[in-house]
């Protein structure tokens, strides 16, 4: 059994590791006093002293990133034309797409998974399709979606839809198929009827498994949206990251990575709350 650790000791160690990492980063980027090989003054005059030295690197120090972070978060929701919008606006676009794609996937996957879980025949019949389609990278669907839908925003929602559907579908089908026989027998002896049995017995019995599927799905959806938006462009945190790469703003890219991580954590925690609400002890 793992040993229980005190929260404060772990937090202290985390803080120390972070400080060591950021400190090493900061120190590594300090401008060195001792310059390298002596410069040819003519060469320096030609292209500028700093550039000739190899001088200013594009990699920012943590302190510079922190300053930039404060700057970005001071006004996260500004919109100055299509190509200049705040980081909050970009994240909101991404969340909107993930929400739409994931929501549509849940609307399809949970009822369909329910039917598949109830019917061994349908399960066996649909299994080959699911097994072939599930391992396909969601981005492989993008060209097809762009061709068929002819709208880049809806195409990225479709890609989110297609990548979030599988875990929810499989988990729902599994959860429904493995509802304890005796609970179904209780419903049968009470003449509960199929609708009441589905809503009052099978759904709550399978809910923890279904929510686990939803949790996996939203994690994958949040992974995929960044890549999808890099491809389609326009808006969203993925597009923003790519845009900052073209601007060579490494600080903004680092900040975006941090933001993507934090939002992903938040999404997972939200589903975690739902999981706690539907869990039961046997």
């Amino acid at each position, binding site marked *: 059994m793992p040993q229980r650790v005190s929260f404060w000791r772990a937090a202290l160690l985390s803080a120390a590791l972070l400080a060591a990492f950021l400190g090493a980063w900061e120190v590594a980027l300090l401008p060195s006093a001792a310059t390298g090989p002596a410069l040819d003054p003519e060469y320096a005059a030609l292209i500028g002293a700093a550039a000739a030295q190899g001088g200013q690197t594009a990699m920012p120090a943590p302190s510079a990133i922190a300053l930039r972070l404060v700057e970005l978060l001071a006004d996260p929701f500004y919109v100055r034309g299509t190509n200049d919008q705040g980081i909050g606006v970009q994240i909101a676009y991404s969340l909107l797409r993930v929400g739409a794609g994931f929501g549509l996937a849940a609307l399809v996957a949970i009822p369909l998974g329910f039917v598949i879980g109830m019917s061994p025949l349908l399960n066996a019949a649909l299994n080959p399709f699911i097994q072939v389609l599930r391992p396909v990278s969601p981005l492989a669907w993008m060209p097809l979606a762009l061709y068929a839908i002819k709208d880049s925003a809806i195409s990225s929602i479709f890609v989110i839809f297609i990548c979030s559907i599988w875990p929810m579908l499989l988990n729902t089908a599994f959860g429904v198929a493995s509802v304890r026989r*005796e*609970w179904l*027998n*209780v419903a*049968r*002896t*009470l*003449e*509960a009827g199929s609708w*009441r049995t589905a809503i*009052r*017995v099978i759904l*709550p*019995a399978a*809910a923890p498994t279904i929510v686990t599927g939803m949790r996996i799905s939203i994690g994958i959806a949040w992974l995929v949206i960044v890549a999808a938006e890099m491809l389609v462009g326009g808006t969203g945190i993925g597009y923003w990251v790519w845009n900052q790469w073209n601007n060579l703003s490494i600080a903004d890219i680092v900040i975006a990575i941090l933001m993507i991580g934090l939002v992903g954590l938040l999404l997972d925690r939200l589903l975690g709350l739902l999981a706690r609400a*539907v869990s*039961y*002890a*046997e």
Partner: protein
Amino acid sequence: MKPDVAIEGIARRFGATTVFEDVWFTVDRGEFVCLVGHSGCGKTTILNILAGLDAPDSGAMLVDGREITGPSLDRAVIFQSHALLPWLTAAENVAFALTCRHPGWSRGQALAEARKALGRVGLDHAGDRKPAQLSGGMKQRVGIARALAIKPRILLMDEPFSALDALTRGALQEEVSRLVSEAEQTGFMITHDVDEAILLADRILLMSNGPGARIAEVVVNTLPRPRTRASLHHMPGYHALRDHILDFLITRSREFSAASPPPGWSPRAVPEVKPAEGAAS
């Protein structure tokens, strides 16, 4: 008396193996019948057929003279594993059954009735608890309350107390005995506890060993009611009754053969014996 439920010549086969066949019996209104036999004679299958959860390969079940298949609210089951829905509280479990019986009831009305039903099994205080927070005996009490709350025509019990410790089992047996006689509830119970059968039953059906099991004897329990566990073994006739059943389980259940049955035995008219009556006089 008119039989509430009649089983007519049912058989169950798994492949080439016949678990039991040519099983006939009736349960009269207000009567409590116990089915006793060794593992493997198909007791649970017979109960599941009565509950409508299983179907016989031949033969039929008649309720009120009409052939019935499938489960019904009129035949409530107390499951060995209590089978409570773990995401509902004790009161909600009972209320779920009540709303199945009375679709027009509001949630509040069903919960109020559920609490009354829990009160009758001594669980007034535990209505808001989830099954995981209840002891084994309390869970089974909720199961009993759920089955009785819907006022079934017949109460079916599949070794309901076998998973409980001896003290709890004794308390619940008396509880069921009291509830069943108060409500004049028709009951059918599977057990392999001989004392449980003697405490509760009006008639005890003894099954021979499977495969090819039959009802070999019907023991009429003539011990007067009310019976309590404390006084049961002091009743005249108790020992004769108990010895008779134990002898059956140890030797006669093995030796019984439908091909060369004991004199007077036929599957449709299994002889009734009253071992306690002779000894009491």
